[in-house]
């Protein structure tokens, strides 16, 4: 019961600050926390990135393997996005099979990557109908202080752009030999998340804000600024105008995020 009372007090506190034009960590309403993106930080992964977003830290690894294509896409590589919310990263993450938050994270990141068509999957066919490259993106938060959607999408595209193809011999992957060839990536989708607390809309919620938010809206954009993915969260609602406004102003935030990707 105490948990709920504490939650009420917290929400009250965060909201009052916002009423006074302030956020819990002193940022502007439309401001991201400090962002850093390092790539190529894992020698076992074909591609990798470590994203720091304020105190949130996420590692993303890209592994390549080979296998059968889907029957309805015989000449196309396969993309698989997976997340693990390991309890090392937060007391609220639990061991066991993926829960709905884990699944949602993986699927919303996957949506921006997939729908933007950023990976040239049609170039990942080895033998039509028989053998294609399978791209595994593993989202691996290490320290959780809110807004995994934006951090993980940023890490995923940064890692993909840094992915080298391993050597292929007789239909088998030689992981120990990396070729010069990079994974063909033609777009740079990112996701931008706003949340609504009371009557305020703020960018990039930190954990303290996430815990009290009414509603959340994540929008993914490709390089052209087109919308490729959306996901509303939270038990609260947005007005139509709020949504249209978020989608508009998120576009320039996407451009801002994109600048943090190395290379």
């Amino acid at each position, binding site marked *: *019961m105490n948990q*709920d009372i504490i939650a009420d007090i917290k929400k009250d506190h965060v909201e009052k600050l916002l009423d006074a034009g302030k956020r819990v960590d002193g940022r502007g309403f439309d401001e991201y926390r400090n962002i850093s993106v390092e790539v190529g930080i894992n020698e076992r992964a074909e591609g990798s990135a470590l994203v720091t977003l304020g105190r949130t830290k996420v590692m993303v690894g890209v592994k390549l393997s080979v296998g059968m294509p889907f029957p*309805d*896409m015989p000449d196309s590589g396969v993309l698989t996005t997976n997340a693990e919310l390991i309890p090392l990263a937060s007391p609220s993450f639990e061991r066991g099979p*993926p829960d*709905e*938050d884990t*699944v*949602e994270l*993986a*699927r919303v990141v996957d*949506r921006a990557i*997939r*729908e*933007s068509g950023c990976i040239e999957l049609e170039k990942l066919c080895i033998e039509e109908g028989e053998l294609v490259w399978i791209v595994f993106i593993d989202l691996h938060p290490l320290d959780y202080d809110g807004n995994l959607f934006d951090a993980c999408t940023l890490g995923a595209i940064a890692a993909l752009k840094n992915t080298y193809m391993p050597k292929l011999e007789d239909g088998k992957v030689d992981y120990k030999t990396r070729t010069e060839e990079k994974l063909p990536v033609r777009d740079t989708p990112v996701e931008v998340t706003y949340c609504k607390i009371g009557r305020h809309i703020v960018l990039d919620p930190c954990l303290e804000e996430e815990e009290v938010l009414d509603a959340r*809206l994540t929008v993914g954009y*490709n390089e052209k*600024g*087109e*919308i*490729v*993915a*959306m*996901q*509303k*969260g*939270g*038990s*609260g*609602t*947005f*007005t*139509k105008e709020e*949504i*249209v406004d978020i*989608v*508009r102003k998120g*576009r320039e935030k996407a451009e801002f995020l994109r600048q943090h990707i190395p290379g």
Partner: protein
Amino acid sequence: MKAGEPEEFIVDGRRLDGRRVDELRPLKIEAGVLKRADGSAYVEWGGNKVLAACYGPKEIHPRHEANPKRAVLRTYYSMAPFSVYERKRPGPDRRSMEISKVTRQALESVVFTHLYPMTAIDVFIEILQAQAGTRCAGITAASVALADAGIPMRDLVPACAAGKVGGHIVLDLFDIEDNYGEADLPVAIVPRTGEVCLMQMDGNLTQEEFEQAFELAIKGCMQVYEKQKEALKKVYEKRSEE
């Protein structure tokens, strides 16, 4: 082009199933269709056939999941093995887990959960036959089932998608449009206030297209809302006659 993709999606202003761009598939809603459930609804929406049942407010197990300030709303979206062309293995998959979550959040925005602390309200959505748009059909059925169970709510929650196919913004995609189209945008609203309580999108839309599709989806929701109200009216009349 994917195998099976049609050359054109709209010919002479008509879609492949004969509808206009802003036209819903045929929609039929019936409330109070199950005996055991506290509330239930059946939705036939184009080729979708969906059952929803509501049980509760009721005791919650395990006890530590109970909330002293409000009822815990639990929603489960599930597809029957024979609801799709290729038999679906029973049990939850990642897609149904995500849909269960966004459905729950959409419904939480209208249910007066604080009236029933320490209890659970369970909503089960069963897709018996699928033809794209099952999450919208499910939410639509679920909120009718909740109302049929007498759960106090500030409004019903109609849901409807819009999208883009062959360059056109259209309402309520059916399976061919969903498989080969450019974008799908499911939306659920609280009609009395116009608030948006569910919103997802995948595909590719410019800002302008998005705004157009969003507007269209909301209009679709309002049509669905009328059918929901009719269904409830009908079942109340029927019950008061009994």
